C-alpha cells in the first residue's frame, strides 16, 4: 500500500487530507510542523508528500528545496492558502510537483495525489500509450482506435495524451485546464466540457465501447469499459 506523509499544521485540514487519502487506499501519516516533517520525509521512503506552504518552524518552500537538494524525488503536492500565480510558480520552482490552493475539495486532492503517484511508477519516456483498443503514438503523433486512425487536432491530441497518461484516474476540469493548456485561473465556463465532448465524439464512435466517462461533480475518467 502506498504511503503518504501529510505535513500540515491545521488539524482539521490534516484530518480531511488523511481521511481522503486513506479512502483512496493510501496509508497516511500526519506531521504538524515543518522540522519533524522534513526529518520524516528524509528518513522514510514515502510515495507521496502533501506539504502545507506555510508551517511553523520551517517554510514549505524550504522543506521541498531541502528534499530536492538531497536528491529525494518523492512527489510533493503543495497545499497553500496563497492562490497567487507567483506563489504557485515559486512552489513549483522549488521542486513541488503540483500546487493546490486552499480551500480545496478532497476529491480534487485525491485526484491530484493519484496522478502524482501514477506519474512516478512508469518510465516517463514512453513513446506509445495504450488503453483498451485506443493507441497513441507520441513520436509519430497519431492515434488509432481499434486499428482505425483518428484525425485529431493538436489540442485534442494533447488532451487525449493527458487523459491516457492518467487512465483509470479521475482528472478534474481544473487539472485538465492546467496540464493541457497550462493556465491556472478559473475558466469559469463549460469550455473544458465542450473540448471533452468533441474528443469523445472522435474516439468513441458509434458501436464502440465508450472510453471517456464523466464523473459527476468531479471530472472525467478515461478507462476501458467494464
Amino acid at each position, binding site marked *: 500500500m502506498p504511503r503518504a506523509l501529510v505535513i500540515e499544521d491545521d488539524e482539521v485540514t490534516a484530518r480531511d487530507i488523511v481521511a481522503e487519502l486513506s479512502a483512496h487506499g493510501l496509508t497516511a501519516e500526519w506531521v504538524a510542523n515543518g522540522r519533524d516533517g522534513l526529518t520524516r520525509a528524509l528518513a522514510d521512503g514515502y510515495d507521496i508528500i502533501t506539504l502545507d506552504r506555510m508551517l511553523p518552524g520551517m517554510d514549505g518552500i524550504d522543506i521541498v528545496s531541502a528534499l530536492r537538494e538531497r536528491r529525494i524525488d518523492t512527489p510533493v503536492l503543495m497545499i497553500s492558502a496563497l492562490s497567487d500565480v507567483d506563489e504557485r510558480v515559486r512552489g513549483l520552482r522549488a521542486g513541488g510537483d503540483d500546487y493546490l490552493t486552499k480551500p480545496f475539495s478532497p476529491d480534487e486532492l485525491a485526484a491530484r495525489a493519484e496522478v502524482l503517484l501514477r506519474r512516478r511508477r512508469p518510465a516517463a519516456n514512453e513513446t506509445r500509450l495504450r488503453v483498451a483498443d485506443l493507441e497513441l503514438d507520441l513520436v509519430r503523433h497519431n492515434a488509432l482506435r481499434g486499428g482505425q486512425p483518428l484525425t485529431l487536432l493538436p489540442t485534442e491530441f494533447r488532451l487525449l495524451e493527458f487523459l491516457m497518461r492518467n487512465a483509470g484516474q479521475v482528472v478534474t476540469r481544473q487539472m485538465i485546464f492546467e496540464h493541457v493548456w497550462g493556465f491556472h485561473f478559473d475558466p469559469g465556463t*463549460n*469550455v473544458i466540457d465542450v473540448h471533452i*465532448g468533441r474528443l469523445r465524439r472522435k474516439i468513441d464512435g458509434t458501436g464502440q465501447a465508450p472510453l471517456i466517462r464523466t464523473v459527476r*461533480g468531479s471530472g472525467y475518467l478515461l478507462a476501458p469499459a467494464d
Partner: protein
Amino acid sequence: MDRGISLRPLTDAWRSATSRLILIYGALFAIWCVVLLGVVQWEASRYLSRVVDQMLVARIHYLEGTDARNLPDTVATASAVDVQGFMRVGLFDAHGRRVAGNIARVPDELSEDGTVTSVKAMLVDASRDTPMRARGITRELPDGRRLVVIKDSTTIDGLGAIIRRGLLWGLSLTLIPGVLGGVLIARGPARRIRAIQQAMEPIREGDLSVRLPVSRGGDEVDLLAATVNTTLGEIERLLGEVKGVSDNIAHDLRTPLTRMRTRLYRLQQQFAETPEGDQLEACVAEIDTVLGRFRALLRVSELEDRQRSACFEELDIGAVLRNVHDFYAPLAEDRGQAFEIRLDKLPPLRGDPQLMFEAFANLVGNAIKFTPDGGAVRLVATTDAAGDARIDIADTGPGIPEGEREAVFRRFYRGDETRTKPGCGLGLAIVSAIVRLHGYSLSVGGDEKGAVFSVTCPPVVSS
C-alpha cells in the same frame, strides 16, 4: 474610451474666464481714466475761459474809460503791440467800418448785451490769419462807434490737447503693462489649475491613491486642493473597507462552503442514480457556482492589489490570441457561430502571457455567451495609427447600451440584457484589472448590432 465630459475644455474655459476678467478690468480702468480726465479738462477749460472772459471785460472796460479822442491812437498802439494777435482790439465807426486796430470787421457772433461770446474771428490781415476759436466782447460807445476786443482761446484747446495726450500716454503706460502683468499673474493659477487637472486624471480613471498638489502658499486653491485630498483619503478608506469586507466574506465563507460541498458530494455518491442523488448533484453545482464567484471576487482583488510587475516578459500577443481562439473555437462551433481570428503584424509588447490569456479568454467567452446561435465573433489584432497594438473582440450580440458602457467594468455589474444569462458580472472586472496592471487600456464600443471590446497596448519603447 467614452468617459463622459472631458476635463480638457475646462482649462480653456478657465483661461478665457481669466482673460475676460482682465479685459473687463482694463476696459473699466480705461473708461474711468477718460471720465476722470474729461472732468479735469472740462473744469480746466471752464476756469481758463473764465479768466479770458475776465481779461476781456477788464480790457474793454479800460478802453471805454480812455478819452474818446485818444481812443483810435490807444487802439492802434495796443494792436501794434499785439504782434502775435493774442488780444486783438478793433474800433469801428457807426457803419461798421474799421477805424483802428487789428480786427478786420465786427464778427457777427458778438452779443449786443455786452457779454463775452465765442467767435470765429477773422482778422485784419487775412493773408497770415486763419479763422481761430476765440472769445470776443463788444461795446457800442456813446458816440456810435463800436469797440471790439477778441482774445484768442486756442490756449484752452491747447490745454485740452495736452490733457488728451496725457490721457493717451497715461493709459498706454498703465494699461499695457497692467494687462500684460495681469496675464502673467493669471498664468500662475492657470498652471496650478492645470496641474490639479492632470493630477485628477488618474483619479477619474479610478486610482484613488493619487493626491492633488498643494503648494506652500496656503491660498484658496491650496485650501480647496487640501479639502479634495482629505475627501479622497476618506473615499479611499471607505472603499477599501467595503472591498475588505466583501473580500473577507468571500475568503471566510470559502472554507465552510468547501466542506459542505465535500459532504454533499459524498452523499451524492452514495445516492448515485436516485432522485435524491440528482437533488444532491444540483446542490453541489450551486455551491460550485458560489465558490466560483468567490474565487472571481478574490481574483479581482488580488489583481488590483498587485503592483505592476517589473518582470513582465516579451509578450507574443499573437500566440496568446491564437491560444484563446483555439480554446474557444469548439464552443463557438457548437453554438453555430463563425469565430474568426485575424492577426496583423504587431509591435513588440511586454506583459504576462498567463494574465493576457485570462483577460482575452474572458472577453471572448463573454462574446460567445452573448452572441446568439449562428452569429459571429471576431478577434482582430492590428496596429493602429498611433503605433499601438489594438485587439478588437467584436460580436453580433445585443450590444451594450451607451449608458452602461462605463458600468460594465465594475464588479458585479450586470446589464438588463444580460441578467438572464449565467455569470456573476466579475469577468470584465478581472479583464479591467489585468489591462490596468499592464498599462493597457480597455474600451467598449459597437452598436445595437453587437459590442466591440478593444484593448489598446502601447508598444515597448526600445531604449
